[in-house]
C-alpha cells in the first residue's frame, strides 16, 4: 500500500529522519510513538505525499511518488484518510460540509451520501453539532470530526496523527474501537500517538505493531510497553 525505502528527511537544518524503511501491508495495524519533536507527524506527511523525501523512495499504491504529478497525488489522497494533528478544516463551512469535502472534491455528490454522513456523525457523537463551524467546536470534537472526515471516502489506508490527543479516556476508547473496526474491514491503519495506555488497550483487541522513532531511526518497540 504505502512503502518508504531508505527515506531521509530534513527541514533545512540537520536530518530529522534518516534511512527510514517502512512498509504498510494491506490490513495491517501500526502504532508510531516517539518523543515530541521526534518526527512522527513528519513521517506521516511523507506517507501521504505532503512532503517529498530528501533521499530514498516513497511508493503510494505501487507508484513511485517521484513519478507522480499533483493530479496523481490528489487521486492517491482519496484512498488515504488523514487525521491531521491540527485537524485542518475550512473554518467558514459548517461541520457537515467539512465532512463532505472529500466527496465534493472527488466529484461525488454529497447529497447522495446524506445517509452515510448522518451515520458517521452519530458514530463520532457529533450529530447535534453538524451545523457548527469548526472554530466553535472543542478540541476533542474537532478530532472526532477529523476522524469522520478521514473515513468518509472509505479509504484503503487511515493515517491518524494523535487522534486521541484532546479527548477523555472514554472517547479515546470509542475512537480506538472505531479504528479497530475499520481495520477488521480490511483497512490499513497507522496511528501516531504518545498515549501508551491507548496502545496497550489496542493490543488486547488487535494484532498491532508498535514502531518508535529514536535517534532519527525507526525501530520496532519491544515488550517494554
Amino acid at each position: 500500500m504505502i512503502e518508504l525505502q531508505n527515506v531521509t528527511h530534513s527541514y533545512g537544518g540537520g536530518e530529522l529522519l534518516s534511512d527510514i524503511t517502512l512498509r504498510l501491508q494491506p490490513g495491517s495495524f501500526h502504532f508510531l510513538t516517539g518523543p515530541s519533536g521526534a518526527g512522527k507527524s513528519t513521517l506521516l506527511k511523507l506517507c501521504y505525499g505532503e512532503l517529498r523525501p530528501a533521499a530514498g523512495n516513497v511508493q503510494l499504491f505501487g507508484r513511485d511518488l517521484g513519478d507522480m504529478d499533483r493530479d496523481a497525488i490528489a487521486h492517491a489522497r482519496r484512498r488515504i484518510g488523514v487525521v491531521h494533528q491540527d485537524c485542518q478544516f475550512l473554518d467558514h463551512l459548517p461541520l457537515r460540509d467539512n465532512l463532505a469535502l472529500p466527496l465534493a472534491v472527488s466529484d461525488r455528490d454529497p447529497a447522495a451520501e446524506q445517509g452515510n454522513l448522518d451515520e458517521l456523525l452519530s458514530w463520532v457523537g457529533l450529530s447535534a453539532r453538524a451545523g457548527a463551524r469548526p472554530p466553535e467546536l472543542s478540541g476533542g470534537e474537532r478530532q472526532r470530526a477529523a476522524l469522520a472526515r478521514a473515513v468518509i471516502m472509505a479509504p484503503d489506508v487511515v493515517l491518524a496523527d494523535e487522534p486521541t490527543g484532546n479527548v477523555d479516556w472514554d472517547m479515546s476508547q470509542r475512537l480506538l474501537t472505531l479504528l479497530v473496526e475499520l481495520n477488521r474491514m480490511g483497512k490499513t491503519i497507522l496511528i501516531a500517538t504518545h498515549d501508551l495506555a491507548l496502545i496497550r488497550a489496542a493490543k488486547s483487541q488487535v494484532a498491532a505493531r508498535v514502531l518508535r522513532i529514536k535517534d532519527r531511526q525507526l525501530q520496532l518497540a519491544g515488550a517494554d510497553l
Partner: protein
Amino acid sequence: MVLITLRALIAGDPQADRVVPPTGFTVRLTMFTAGAMAFLAVFALALSLATGRLADRWSEALARTATVRISAPEGQMQTQTEAALQVLRTTPGIGEVRALSDAEQRALLAPWFGPDLPVDTLPVPQLIEVAETGDGYDAEGLRLRLSAEAPGAVLDDHTRWRRPLVQAADRLRMLGLVSIGLIGLTTAAMITLSANAALAANAGVVRVLRLVGARDVYIARAFVRRFTGRTLQGAAAGTALGMLAIALLPGVSTAGGFLTGLGFHGWHWLWPLIIPIVAAGVAFWATRMAALRMLREIT
C-alpha cells in the same frame, strides 16, 4: 477540459463555490473595476462606431462629387460657363456635369441670406456640379485646361479639406479600438492581481483541499467561478450605466456635427451588450491562468 470547466461554470456547483471563503474586499474591488472598465468600454465603442460612420459617410458622399465655381464679369459669365462645361464633358473620368439653376443657387444661399435674395442682380458665382465616375479624373490636368478655356473657373474637389478629416476620423476609430483593447488588457491585469491576492490569502484553504484529494482544476474552478461571476455582474452594471449615459446625450439633429453623432444607431445598440460577456471571458481566462500558475508553485 475547458469545455467541462465552462459547463460546470454555467451549470453551477454551489459546493465548489463555497469552499472559498467570502473574499469580500478583493471581490468587491474586482466588481468595481469591471464596472468602471465596462463603462469606459461603452464610450470607446461608441466613439469607434461614430467615427467609423463619419469616415464612411464623408469619404463616400464627398469622394464622388466636386464643384466648379465660375466668377466672371457679367458679360462673360455665360460663355465661360459654356466653355467650362465643354471642358468637363470631354474630360475622362467625369460623369454627369450640370450647371445649377438660379433657383437651386438661391436655395443653397437661402440659409445665409434669406429666401428673397436677388441672385440675378448680385455677382454670385455660377456653380457646376461634377460627378466622378469609377476611376476618377486627373484634378491637376483639369485645372490647367480650365484656366486656359475659362479663366474664371475654379475647381473645388473637396479633397483639400476632406482628406485630413477622413484621416482624422479613421485615426479616431483606431484609437477607439485600441482603447477597447487596452481596457480589456487592464481588466485582465487587475483580475489577475486580485485573483493572486485571493489565492495567497487562502493558502490555508488550498492546503485543506489538497489534503482531502482536490485536484488543481477543482481548486482553480472555485476561484474562477467567484471572479467570473462578479466580473460579469460588475461589467453588466457598468455597461448599463454607460448605455444609459449615451442614451441621455442630446439628440442627434441634422445640423449636429460629430459630437451629437456620438451614440449607437439602430442595431448598433446590440454591440455594447457583448462587453459584459467579453469581460466575463477575460475574467475566466485570467483567473484560471493565475490560479493554475499559483497552484503549480505551491506544492
